């Protein structure tokens, strides 16, 4: 955090100054470790063992926050009797080894039937669509669950949890993670001593957790710990995702993502969502609890925002003009289609996949297959110039004169040259005012896409074709500034939404609660409704922090409804009183009969804690006064996920797709549901028990540096930042340096089945070797900012070129935080000799397209 979110880290230091204990769990010693109370190095890819052992410790020593657990989580809920926990093979009930997918019906709560959308297995594509939850919990048929509040019933979630994690012991932590009993005990002590009524513990993670083939389950592991300890919805608690790009949260909320519509509404699916009613039926049940039952109003308002008067009740509000998805169409699936030559055109909008995405060579080979490529960026990034100076030109794999890709480079406007909002990592929208005009041909994306839309609509104006109806009927009449730039405030107003008829016609909506499913309101992203409440741009508010409470509610605007902490009703006890004076945040004011406090209550404001709905009531009215998790279908925090996940209801340890270590827990070596792409351009290093893994004996992990930004498009082109971190380097321990004759400041070559890269050697104790299962495992650390090209101030080999593509099945994120490699002293061969060098490694390891891609690990001795 100190390295990659330095200014946010000042608050960790503030907390430390006030007595907080800071523990840094990371394979590397970094600037964060330097100021932490304790650094716990562990093997990259082993975190679920550590998290699972913490869960085991909390349960077996009875350190959980019982009142919170019983009232606010699903610990007491009974689960279907057919549910079977992972067996020795390592799979839960319902697994189909052929397809690598689960039938999740046995995972459901007792008496709650499986829902259509739960598994997303109906997809016709090669890979399932995954899940598109993000602002809400998964659907349940209804919220009438059976509970045992003594937590003793063997079918209750709590007992399932206890049994599942019984195998995750301190000994296992030492054996798998390389974390000794003393370090483990200190973590146990710190998190349990600092949880309960008087105290809270916070967890912070970033892509070190998401970029794994079991990434979602890492985060779930932390969720379980935080729910058991009562640390969600309370000040100083929570699980904070630190996001790396200025508006990466915003680009998920208003998604440039294939599987989502704005506000976490799913993209319609082929075969499932022929019309609006089937769409609604699959995403929520009117009988479930909470605010997601209003999805109909959110969807119709979105369609009204997009198609205006052309969207009517008679034409399903234009729902049929939306395209349908049927499988994984995420960026890596698209890459495979590019390599196959079925993708013709590609837009890159401030993104540099030639350097920033896994398997850079496949990325560049894919782009060489395109008919046309549009790159919009501030600088001449490597993805725009691969056709003349990419590494494959040097090896002879590509020849400029043979590459048929037509490339348009369009300069982009900088953040000071346009106005608009970023959504930061805390869900906070902050409006930027425009300072100056962009230079030359540089334009904002707002300008470009508006202009592109105008052109497309002009060219299709007279089209009789039904397929063009969506574009023709699109609302696209934004007011323009003198330079032709659409008015960003008008776009933000459309996102917020308006009353379209009635007494308030034309006025801005102040809350998504005002949205209607009858076409009388519009709004492009329901969770952002309120950002223009009272006709005022709330994101532009800048009341100085010094003049406000510590929550600072009048700086910017956070979704939903300016709530700064989600699920904050949980900061009070079931009776609505603060758990303690020290930790008061939101509470029930008996005199006023309202929820009140430091923040906007994330709960129906006048619903008393004692309220109990009539059995069978759905929607917000179905929430009891002690159901703080208002976006969950049963109002509770989920220790166990009966639906919504594709790879298991509880986090389970599998080794990374490439690992030098055998999974000691189960026969199954790696996540059996992971998404893999076995093909010549994406070979995988062997892992035990497959033979050949000794050729790639080291763990490799990638990361960022303070002085650079991801693939370097906004940093390697700046002299200041380039001077601070000029060259690609690898971090290795003194022990590994001795073993492999690596010299500090000299060169090293790092090899995988994909390619070999060269880097300067940094010999440092920051990457300590770990003793895993009786042997020493070395880890190699690689910052991934550099790329090969002729335009940046500094260039170099790209760490991402080393990595293969294996994805988490839920969210299609690649495993770039743990892989295997070999490392040797000296520079890598150049030209065609590089290909021979890599080929030699492949031959020694016996690598074929199927290596590392056998889904189910066969029984011992059968390989």
């Amino acid at each position, binding site marked *: 955090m100190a390295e990659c979110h330095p200014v946010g880290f000042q608050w960790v230091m503030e907390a430390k100054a006030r007595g907080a204990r800071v523990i840094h769990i990371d394979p590397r010693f970094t600037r964060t470790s330097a100021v932490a109370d304790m650094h716990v190095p562990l093997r990259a890819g082993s975190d679920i063992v550590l998290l699972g052992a913490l869960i085991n410790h909390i349960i077996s020593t009875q350190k959980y926050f019982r009142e919170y657990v019983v009232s606010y989580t699903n610990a007491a809920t009974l689960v279907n009797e057919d549910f079977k926990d992972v067996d020795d093979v390592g799979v839960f009930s319902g697994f189909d080894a052929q397809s690598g997918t689960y039938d999740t019906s046995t995972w459901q709560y007792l008496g709650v039937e499986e829902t259509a959308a739960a598994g997303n297995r109906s997809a016709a594509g090669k890979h399932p669509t995954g899940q598109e939850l993000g602002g809400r919990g998964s659907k349940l048929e209804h919220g009438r669950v059976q509970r045992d509040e003594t937590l003793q019933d063997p079918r209750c979630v709590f007992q399932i949890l206890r049994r599942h994690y019984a195998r995750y012991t301190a000994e296992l932590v030492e054996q798998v993670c390389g974390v000794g009993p003393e370090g483990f005990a200190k973590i146990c002590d710190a998190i349990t001593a600092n949880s309960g009524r008087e105290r809270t513990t916070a967890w912070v993670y970033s892509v070190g957790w998401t970029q794994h083939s079991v990434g979602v389950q890492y985060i779930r592991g932390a969720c379980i710990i935080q729910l058991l300890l009562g640390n969600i919805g309370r000040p100083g608690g929570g699980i904070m995702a630190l996001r790396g790009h200025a508006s*990466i949260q915003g680009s998920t909320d208003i998604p440039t993502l294939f599987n989502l519509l704005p506000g976490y509404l799913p993209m319609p699916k082929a075969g499932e969502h022929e019309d609006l009613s089937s769409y609604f039926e699959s995403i929520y049940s009117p009988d479930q609890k909470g605010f997601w039952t209003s999805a109909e109003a959110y969807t119709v308002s979105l369609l009204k925002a997009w198609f205006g008067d052309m969207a009517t009740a008679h034409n399903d509000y234009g729902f049929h003009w939306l395209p*349908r998805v049927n499988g994984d169409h995420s960026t890596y699936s698209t890459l495979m289609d590019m390599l196959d030559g079925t993708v013709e055109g590609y837009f890159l909008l401030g993104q540099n996949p030639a350097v920033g995405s896994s398997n850079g060579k496949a990325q560049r080979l894919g782009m060489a297959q395109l008919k046309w490529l549009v790159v919009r960026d501030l600088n001449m990034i490597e993805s725009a110039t691969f056709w003349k100076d990419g590494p494959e030109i040097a090896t002879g794999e590509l020849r400029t004169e043979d590459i048929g890709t037509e490339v348009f480079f369009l300069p982009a406007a900088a953040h000071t040259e346009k106005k608009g909002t970023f959504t930061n990592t805390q869900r906070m929208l902050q409006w930027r005012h425009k300072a100056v005009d962009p230079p030359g041909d540089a334009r904002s994306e707002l300008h470009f896409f508006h202009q592109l839309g105008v052109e497309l609509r002009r060219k299709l104006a007279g089209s009789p074709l039904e397929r063009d109806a969506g574009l023709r009927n699109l609302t696209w009449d934004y007011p323009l500034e003198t330079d032709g730039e659409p008015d960003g405030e008008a776009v933000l107003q459309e996102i917020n939404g308006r009353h379209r008829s009635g007494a308030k016609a034309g006025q801005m909506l102040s809350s998504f609660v005002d949205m209607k499913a009858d076409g009388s309101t519009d709004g492009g992203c329901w969770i952002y409704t309120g950002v223009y409440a009272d006709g005022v741009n709330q994101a532009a508010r800048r009341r100085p922090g010094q003049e406000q409470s510590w929550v600072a509610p009048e700086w910017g605007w956070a979704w939903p409804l300016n709530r700064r902490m989600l699920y904050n009703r949980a900061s009070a006890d079931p009776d609505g009183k603060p758990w303690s004076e020290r930790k008061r945040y939101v509470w029930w004011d008996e005199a006023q009969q309202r929820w009140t406090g430091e923040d906007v209550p994330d709960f129906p404001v006048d619903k008393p804690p004692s309220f109990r709905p009539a059995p069978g009531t759905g929607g917000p009215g179905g929430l009891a006064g002690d159901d703080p998790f208002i976006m969950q279908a049963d109002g509770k925090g989920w220790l166990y996920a009966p639906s919504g996940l594709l790879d298991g209801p509880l986090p389970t340890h599998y080794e990374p797709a490439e690992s030098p270590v055998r999974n000691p827990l189960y026969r199954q070596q790696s996540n059996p549901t992971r998404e893999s792409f076995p093909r010549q351009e994406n070979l995988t290093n062997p892992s035990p028990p497959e033979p050949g893994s000794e050729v790639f004996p080291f763990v490799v992990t990638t990361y960022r540096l303070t002085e650079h930004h991801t693939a370097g498009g906004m*940093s390697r082109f700046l002299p200041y930042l380039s001077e601070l971190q000029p060259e690609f380097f690898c971090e290795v321990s003194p022990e590994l340096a001795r073993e492999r004759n690596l010299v500090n400041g000299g060169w090293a070559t790092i090899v995988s089945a994909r390619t070999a890269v060269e880097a300067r050697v940094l010999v440092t104790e920051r990457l300590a070797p770990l003793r895993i299962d009786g042997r020493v495992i070395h880890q190699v650390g690689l910052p991934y900012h550099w790329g090969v090209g002729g*335009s940046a101030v500094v260039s170099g080999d790209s760490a991402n070129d080393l990595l293969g593509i294996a994805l988490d099945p839920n969210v299609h994120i690649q495993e770039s935080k743990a892989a295997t490699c070999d490392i040797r002293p000296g520079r890598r061969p150049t030209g065609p000799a590089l290909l021979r060098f890599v080929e030699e490694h492949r031959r020694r390891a016996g690598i074929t397209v199927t290596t590392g891609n056998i889904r189910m690990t066969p029984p011992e001795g059968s390989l």
Partner: protein
Amino acid sequence: MGARNRRRSWPVLGQLTGADRLGRGAAVESARTASLSPRTATADRVVQSVCPYCAVGCGQRVYVKNEKVVQIEGDPDSPISRGRLCPKGSASEQLVNNPNRVTSVRYRRPYATDWEDLPLDRAVDMISDRLLDTRARTWQEADKDGNKLRRTMGIASLGGATLDNEENYLIKKLFTAAGVVQVENQARI
């Protein structure tokens, strides 16, 4: 400069006789330093902004003179950052004024070995033609079971995490209406 002033300008003397006994301030200030004023003091206007790098969202004050950004500083009013910026945020003035920044459209024909010039309007016109052409050729109305698809798998987009919400909104809206579903950004990565 009179003799007395000249003597005072000797740093050691100034340090011994003035208030700045440690020689860290006025005593050692040169005439040149004294004549300088910060760019922040002479700017025509100050515009409130947000750092474009990571998602902490530090507040920035952008100083503008003669319609040019002359300095970017942390905004002390921000309850998030309290005036601080990290090396990246501090370098953002150079991001904007970078002499390496490409500010005209570049065009590479298929199989060509170098860039050419292209007017911006022409580029947008050509891109819209390419998009319509590919879309028409790769259009999928329904799958083999007759389920509605209404899309093209021939066009894809990647990017958007450094962009504004308003920009992402128009990107998603336009592409979706056009039947382009392979719209992705860094959040996936």
